[in-house]
C-alpha cells in the first residue's frame, strides 16, 4: 500500500463532503472515524519497514516524493491516532451541540489532517510550502468556525500571522532554488553547505523566522494564546495535538537535514519558551489560555531536547511528544464537554464537575504532564533529563526542574478545585462512549509509562533516523549521481 493514500483519501473525502453531509451528522462523524482509523492501520502496516520512498508522477530526481521512515512514521501514527480519538469525541458529542455546517466542518478537519500528514511525509520543499498553506488555511477557518466576535478576531489575526510566516518560508525557498536549482530535499541537503556563506545565513534566518512562528518558538509565539482562546476547545485540542507536533517535526527534519549551525540558540530559545510560558500560565484564569500556555511550554521543552542532539534526550522528546499530544487532546476535549454543559471555560467551572470519571481523567492527565512515575510523562522527562545531564548542560537541567515546579503550581491549583472542599458538583451526564473515551486515553498514558520498554526501541530508532541526514539523502537519491 503506498503512502499516497495518507493524502489522497482525506482529499477525496473532503471533495465529496456534500454526499456525506446529506446522510446527517452521525454519518459525518462515523465517516471521519472510519477514515482516520483506516489511515492509522495503514500507518501500522509500515512499522519496521525501513525507509519507503514513493515517487509521484515521474521518476527521481525530478519527481516529488513522499518518504516514510521511522521518524516520520512516528508522527503519522501520532496524527492519525489523535484524529481517531477526536472523531470518537465528535461522534459521542450530543446532537444539540451540533453546529449548522457539519459538512464543511468535515472538510476542514479532513484537510487539516491531509495537510499535517503532507508536512510530515513530503520530501520536496515547494510541496512542503503548499502543505503549509493547506494546514494554515484549514486552521484559520477552524479557528473562526463559530463566527462569534472572539472567533472571527482570532481567525483574522491567525490568517495575517500565518501569511507572513509562509511568506518568509517562500522567500527562503526562492533563494534555495536560485542557488541550487532544485526543490528536491535530498539534492538540497547534499549541497546545502556548498552555497556561499551569506546566502546560507539569509536562508536559515528566513526559514527560522517562518517555521519558528509556526512551531511556536519563543520570540515568535506571541500569537498562540489568543488563537487558542478564540477557537472552540475541541479545535484547540487538534491544534495542540496534531499541528504543534507536525511543525516541530518539520522544523527539526529540515534543521538536521541542512545541518544548520546555530543549535545552541535553538536550545536556549526552547528553554526560554518553556520558562516564560509556564510563568504566564500561572496568571491565567481561563482554562483554554492555561492549556495554551502549557502546550507552548511543553513544545519548548521538546524543542530544547531535540536541539540538544543527545540520543537519550531525543528519545525522551519522542516519548514527551506522544504523551503531551494525547494529554492535551484529553484536556481540551474535557474542556469542550464542560463548555457545552456549563457554557464557560473559566477555571471555576472545575468546581462544578460532578462525574468521577472526568475527575479521574483530569487528574491522570495532570500527573502525566507533570511527569509523575507510573505515566509516560515520567519516562519522557527522565530520559530528557538524563540526556541533559550527559551533555553537562546543567543550566538547562535546572530550568526543566524549575519549569516542572511552576507547572505543578497551576496543576495543583486546578486539582484543588476538582477535589477541594467548597465544591457544588452538578450532574454531568456522560454517555457510555465518553466514559470509555475518558478511560481509554489515560490508559494510553499508563501503557506508555509501564510498558515503556516495548516502545523504547521504536522511539530510539525514530530518534536516530530523525537526525541521520546522510541516510535520508542516500536512500532518496538511490543510484542517482
Amino acid at each position, binding site marked *: 500500500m503506498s503512502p499516497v493514500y495518507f493524502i489522497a483519501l482525506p482529499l477525496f473525502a473532503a471533495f465529496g463532503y456534500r454526499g456525506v453531509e446529506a446522510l446527517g451528522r452521525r454519518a459525518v462523524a462515523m465517516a471521519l472515524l472510519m477514515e482516520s482509523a483506516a489511515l492509522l492501520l495503514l500507518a501500522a502496516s509500515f512499522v519496521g519497514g525501513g525507509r519507503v520512498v514513493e515517487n509521484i508522477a515521474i521518476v527521481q530526481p525530478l519527481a516529488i516524493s513522499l518518504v516514510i521512515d521511522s521518524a516520520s512514521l512516528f508522527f503519522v501514527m501520532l496524527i492519525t491516532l489523535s484524529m481517531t480519538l477526536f472523531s470518537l469525541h465528535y461522534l459521542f458529542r450530543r446532537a444539540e451541540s451540533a453546529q449548522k455546517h457539519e459538512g464543511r466542518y468535515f472538510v476542514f478537519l479532513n484537510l487539516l489532517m491531509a495537510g499535517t500528514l503532507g508536512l510530515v511525509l513530503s520530501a520536496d520543499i515547494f510541496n512542503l510550502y503548499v502543505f503549509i498553506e493547506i494546514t494554515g488555511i484549514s486552521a484559520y477557518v477552524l479557528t473562526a468556525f463559530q463566527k462569534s466576535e472572539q472567533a472571527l478576531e482570532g481567525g483574522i489575526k491567525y490568517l495575517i500571522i500565518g501569511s507572513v510566516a509562509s511568506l518568509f518560508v517562500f522567500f527562503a525557498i526562492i533563494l534555495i*532554488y536560485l542557488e541550487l536549482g532544485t526543490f528536491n530535499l535530498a539534492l538540497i541537503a547534499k549541497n546545502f553547505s556548498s552555497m556561499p556563506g551569506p546566502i546560507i545565513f539569509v536562508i536559515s534566518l528566513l526559514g527560522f523566522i517562518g517555521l519558528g512562528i509556526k512551531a511556536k518558538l519563543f520570540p515568535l509565539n506571541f500569537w498562540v494564546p489568543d488563537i487558542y482562546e478564540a477557537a472552540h476547545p475541541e479545535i484547540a485540542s487538534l491544534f495542540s495535538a496534531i499541528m504543534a507536533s507536525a511543525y516541530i517535526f518539520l522544523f527539526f527534519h529540515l534543521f538536521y537535514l541542512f545541518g544548520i549551525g546555530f543549535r545552541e540558540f535553538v536550545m536556549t530559545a526552547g528553554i526560554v519558551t518553556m520558562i516564560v510560558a509556564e510563568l504566564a500560565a500561572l496568571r491565567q484564569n481561563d482554562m483554554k489560555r492555561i492549556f495554551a500556555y502549557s502546550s507552548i511550554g511543553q513544545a519548548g521543552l521538546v524543542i530544547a531536547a531535540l536541539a540538544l542532539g543527545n540520543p537519550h534526550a531525543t528519545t525522551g522528546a519522542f516519548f514527551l511528544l506522544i504523551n503531551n499530544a494525547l494529554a492535551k487532546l484529553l484536556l481540551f476535549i474535557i474542556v469542550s464537554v464542560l463548555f457545552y454543559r456549563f457554557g464557560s471555560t473559566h477555571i471555576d467551572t472545575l468546581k462544578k464537575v460532578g462525574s468521577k470519571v472526568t475527575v479521574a481523567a483530569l487528574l491522570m492527565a495532570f500527573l502525566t504532564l507533570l511527569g509523575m512515575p507510573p505515566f509516560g510523562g515520567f519516562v519522557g522527562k527522565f530520559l530528557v533529563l538524563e540526556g541533559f545531564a550527559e551533555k553537562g548542560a546543567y543550566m538547562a537541567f535546572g530550568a526543566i526542574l524549575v519549569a516542572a515546579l511552576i507547572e505543578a503550581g497551576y496543576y495543583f491549583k486546578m486539582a484543588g478545585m476538582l477535589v477541594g472542599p467548597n465544591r457544588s458538583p452538578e450532574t454531568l451526564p456522560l454517555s457510555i462512549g465518553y466514559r470509555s473515551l475518558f478511560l481509554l486515553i489515560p490508559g494510553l498514558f499508563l501503557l506508555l509509562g509501564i510498558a515503556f520498554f516495548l516502545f523504547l526501541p521504536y522511539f530510539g530508532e525514530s530518534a536516530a533516523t530523525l537526525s541521520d541526514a546522510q541516510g535520508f539523502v542516500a536512500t532518496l537519491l538511490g543510484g542517482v549521481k
Partner: protein
Amino acid sequence: MFENLLTWLDSPQTLQAIVVTGSLLLFGIGFYGLLAYTRIIKILISLSIMESALFVFFLGLASDPHKTAPILGDLFKNFEKMNDPVPQAAILTAIVISLATMSLGISFAIEYYKRTGKNDIAQMDALGEKR
C-alpha cells in the same frame, strides 16, 4: 551616449542588480505597509504587494532574456534555448494560493465588520487576558 547606456542596462550583471534592488524595494514597501497600517484591507493589500515583489524577484533572477518562453511552437522545436519552466509553475501555484488567502481574508473582514462594525486591527479587543 544613449546607445551604450541601453547596452549597459542589458548586461546580465546590471539586470540582476535592477531586479534585486527593485523587487526588494517593493518588498520593503509592502513590509512597511504591513507594520504601519492597521486596517484589515490595507494589511491584505500590503501582504499581496510583498508577494508580487517575491514573484518578480524569483522570475527576474531565474529567467534569461536571451532565451524564449518554454512553449513549443512551429518556430521553436528544441528546448535548449528555452527558459526554465519550473519557477513559472511554482509562481503560478503561489499566485492562486494568494488569491485563496485574499478571498478568505476579505470574507473574514466582512463578517467581522457585519458583527462588530470595526475593520481595524487596533480596535480589536475581544481576546487577551481579562481580570
